[in-house]
C-alpha cells in the first residue's frame, strides 16, 4: 500500500469536502496569480528601466514648467568626452488624442537625432531608423493603441493635441513597439512639432524633460548630482531622477496599484493557509481512530506524519492548480488592456507568476498540515482507539 494510494483514497472519501476546500483554495489563488503577475510585470519593467540607465532632468517646481531646448548643449558640455553620457534627448508632452475618442495617448515629441540611441530598447532596426530620420512626420506607436485603432506600419494617422495651441498633426508610422510598458505610448519628431508651432505663430523651443542615456550606473548617479548642482540657483533649477523614481511618482498617484496587489497577495496567502489548516484539522479529527489503527498495525510515526502532511500538500496543489491555471489561461487569451496603471497598459500572466503561485500554495499547504501531522505522529494508539469519535 503506497502513500499515494492512501492519499487518493482519503481525498476521495469525502469528495464534498475536498471540492469545497479546493474551491476555497482556488478562488483566492486566482486572485493571487493575477496580483503576482502584475507585480512581476512591474518588477520586470523596473529592472529593465534600471538597465537602460536613463536619467530624467526636469524643472524643479513642476514637470509642466518647460526647460529651454538649449539646455541640451549645456548638459552635453558637462561630459564632452562622452565618458558617462551617451546622448541627451529632449521630450515634449503633446497630449495627442485619437480624433473623436477620449483616449489621450502618452504622446511625446522627441529629439529625432538622439532618440534611437536613448531609446535603443524600442528596438529600431537600421531601416526603421533610416525611415525615422528621412521623414519629418515619422512616428513610433505602442502595440496597444496600434491594435485598438488598427494602425499599421507605413500607415498615416492623425492626433489632436489636448494642450495649447491644440494642434492636429498627421503622422506616418515607421514602427510599432511591442514592449508591455509602452502599449499606450507614441513618439514622434520634435522638429516636426516645432515647425508646426512656428507655422501658427506659437513661440516655443522648450521641452518638458531631458532623458539622458548613461554608460554606467555610477555615471548616472554622478551626472544626477552634477546636473542638479550646475543648474541650482539658476532660473532653470532642475530635479533629476532615474526612470524608476520618475515612474514611482505616477504609480502613487494612480492609487498605488502595486501596493494594493501586494497587500491582496498577503491577505490571500493568509486565507488559503487558514482554509487548508481548517480542512486538515477537520479530517484529522474525524480520522483519529483510523490513524490509531495504522499505528497499531505497525506503521511508523514518520510514515503517519508523511501521510497527513502529503494529504495537505496534495489538497493545496489541487486547489492552486484549479485556481491558477484557468486564470492564467484566461489572462493569456484575453489580456486585460486599457488599464491606466502607471507604465502598464496590459497584464499577461508570466510563467514565473504561475510557478511562484503554485510554489507558495504548496508551502502554505505543508505549513497548514504540520500541526495535524505532528499530532498524528504523537498519537497514542491505545487512547485513540478507546475514544469514541
Amino acid at each position, binding site marked *: 500500500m503506497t502513500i499515494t494510494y492512501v492519499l487518493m483514497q482519503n481525498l476521495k472519501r469525502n469528495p464534498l469536502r475536498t471540492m469545497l476546500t479546493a474551491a476555497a483554495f482556488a478562488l483566492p489563488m486566482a486572485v493571487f496569480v493575477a496580483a503576482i503577475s502584475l507585480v512581476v510585470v512591474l518588477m520586470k519593467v523596473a529592472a529593465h528601466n534600471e538597465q537602460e540607465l536613463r536619467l530624467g532632468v526636469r524643472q524643479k517646481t513642476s*514637470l509642466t514648467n518647460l526647460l529651454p531646448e538649449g539646455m541640451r548643449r549645456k548638459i552635453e558640455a558637462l561630459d564632452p568626452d562622452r565618458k558617462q553620457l551617451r546622448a541627451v534627448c529632449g521630450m515634449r508632452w503633446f497630449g495627442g488624442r485619437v480624433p473623436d475618442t477620449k483616449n489621450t495617448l502618452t504622446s511625446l515629441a522627441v529629439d529625432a537625432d538622439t532618440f534611437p540611441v536613448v531609446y535603443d530598447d524600442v528596438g529600431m532596426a537600421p531601416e526603421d531608423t533610416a525611415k525615422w530620420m528621412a521623414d519629418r512626420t515619422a512616428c513610433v506607436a505602442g502595440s496597444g493603441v496600434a491594435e485598438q485603432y488598427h494602425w499599421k506600419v507605413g500607415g498615416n494617422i492623425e492626433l489632436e493635441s489636448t494642450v495649447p495651441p491644440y494642434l492636429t498633426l498627421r503622422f506616418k508610422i515607421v514602427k510599432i513597439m511591442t514592449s508591455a510598458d509602452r502599449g499606450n505610448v507614441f513618439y514622434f519628431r520634435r522638429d516636426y512639432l516645432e515647425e508646426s508651432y512656428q507655422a501658427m505663430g506659437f513661440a516655443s523651443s522648450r521641452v518638458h524633460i531631458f532623458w539622458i542615456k548613461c554608460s554606467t550606473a555610477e555615471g548616472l548617479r554622478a551626472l544626477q548630482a552634477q546636473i542638479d548642482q550646475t543648474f541650482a540657483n539658476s532660473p532653470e533649477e532642475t530635479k533629476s531622477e532615474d526612470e524608476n523614481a520618475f515612474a514611482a511618482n505616477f504609480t502613487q498617484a494612480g492609487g498605488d496599484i502595486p501596493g494594493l496587489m501586494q497587500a491582496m497577495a498577503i491577505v490571500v496567502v493568509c486565507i488559503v493557509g487558514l482554509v487548508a489548516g481548517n480542512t486538515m484539522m477537520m479530517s484529522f479529527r474525524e480520522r483519529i481512530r483510523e490513524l490509531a489503527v495504522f499505528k497499531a498495525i505497525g506503521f511508523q510515526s514518520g510514515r503517519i506524519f508523511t501521510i497527513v502532511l502529503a494529504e495537505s500538500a496534495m489538497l493545496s496543489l489541487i486547489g492552486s492548480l484549479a485556481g491558477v491555471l484557468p486564470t492564467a489561461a484566461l489572462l493569456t487569451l484575453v489580456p486585460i488592456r486599457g488599464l491606466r496603471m502607471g507604465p502598464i497598459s496590459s497584464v499577461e500572466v508570466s510563467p514565473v507568476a504561475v510557478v511562484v503561485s503554485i510554489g507558495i500554495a504548496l508551502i502554505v499547504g505543508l505549513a497548514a498540515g504540520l500541526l495535524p501531522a505532528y499530532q498524528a505522529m504523537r498519537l497514542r494508539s491505545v487512547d485513540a482507539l478507546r475514544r469514541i469519535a
Partner: protein
Amino acid sequence: MALPISYHWRNLFVRKTTTLLTVLVIAAVVGVFAWMLGFAASLDRSLSQARDETKLLVLKRGATAETNSALPVDEYNNLNQLDDIARDPTTNEPLLSPEMMVQISRPRVRDGGKTWGNIALRGVTEAAFKVHRTVQPTGRVFSAGAQEVIVGVAAAQQFSGLNIGDTLELGYGNNRHYTVVGYFTADKGPAESEVWGYLPSLMNAYNRTMYSSASLRLKGGADPKKVIELIEGPKIQLSAQTEAQYWQTQSASINTYLRITKVLVAVMCLAAIFSIANTMFSMVAGRTREIAMLRTIGFSRGQILSGFVLESVFLSILGGLLGCVGCIAWLYVMGNTKDMFGSSTFTTLAFEIHLTPTNLTCALGSVIVVGVIGAWIPAMRASRVAVVTALREP
C-alpha cells in the same frame, strides 16, 4: 419551543480550532471588503462636493482639463454677455471667476518624500470665493499686493512644505517666493487638495497672458444645458460643462481602480462562502446523532435548519467584527491618506480613508449574507437527517 440561542453559541466553542480558523478566514475577507467600502465612500464623499449642477466650468475648445486649457482674456470677456449668470446681491457683479491653473510638485508625507505628487496651483480673484461656495478660508487669505498663497487642508496634510509660514518657490523661472499665510477647507471636496493664490500675481509669475479656465454660477432656475449650448455656440465658441460632468470624466481612471478591487473582493467573498460551507458540513457530520436526537424529542426540521444557519451567522458576525477592527487598526497603523490623479488633470486629489458607520454596517450585513449562503446546504442536509438510521449509528 425553539432551541435556546446559548445551545448554538456554545456549539461554536466545542471545536475551538475550526471555529477560530473559519472566523479568521471571514475576518480577512471582511477586512479587505471594509477597506474597499471605506475607500469608495471617502472618494465619493470628496467628489460629491463637486457635483454642483449650477456651476459651470468653461475651457478652451479642445482642452480636456483646466491644466491644459488656455483661455484668452478677450474670449473670456465674451462670457459677460450671458444673461443666466447669477449676480452678487450687493455689488450686482456677475458670479464669474477667471482662473489659472498650473501644477507644482511637492514631496508626499506618507512615504517620507520618496515620491512627489502634482498639486494644482489655482490663481483666483475675489469672485472665486463666491462661485466656489464650499471654499472656506480658516484664517487669513492671501492679499493682492503680496506674494502669498493659501493651502487646502488636504494638500497641507499630505504634502510637505505647505504649512503656514513655509515659502514656496513658484513662477516660470522658479524664482518667486510665495509664503503660505492660511489654510482653507472645501467641505472635503477636490479643492482641498489645491493651493490658491492671487490671479494677477500668479499670471505674472508664470509669464501668462491667458487664463486657464473660468467658473461661473448660474442664476436660479437657469437651464445648464441651454447655457452650455450658448457658450459652445458661434458667439462664444468655448467649451463648457457642469462641474458634475467634469469630475465624472476625471474619475474614470479611479473607477477602473475601484472595479479591479471589486472583482477581487467578490472572488474572495465566494471563497469565504466555500470555507463556511466546509466548516458547517463538518459540524453537521459530527453531530448527526445529536440532530437525530433533537428531532426525536420533537424539534422540527425548520428549527434544525435555522439553528445551523444561526450558528453560521454567529461565525460570520464574529469574523466580521474581527475584520472591521482589523481594518480600522490597519488604517490607523499604516496610514489612511491616499491621493489619485484625475484622468486628464494630472493633478492629484488627496483624501483620507475613513470607515463610516454605514460602511461597517454594510460590511457586517454582507458577511451575514455570506454566512447564510454558506450554511444553507449543510443546514438543509442536517434538517433531513434520517432519524432512525442516525440513532442506530455507533
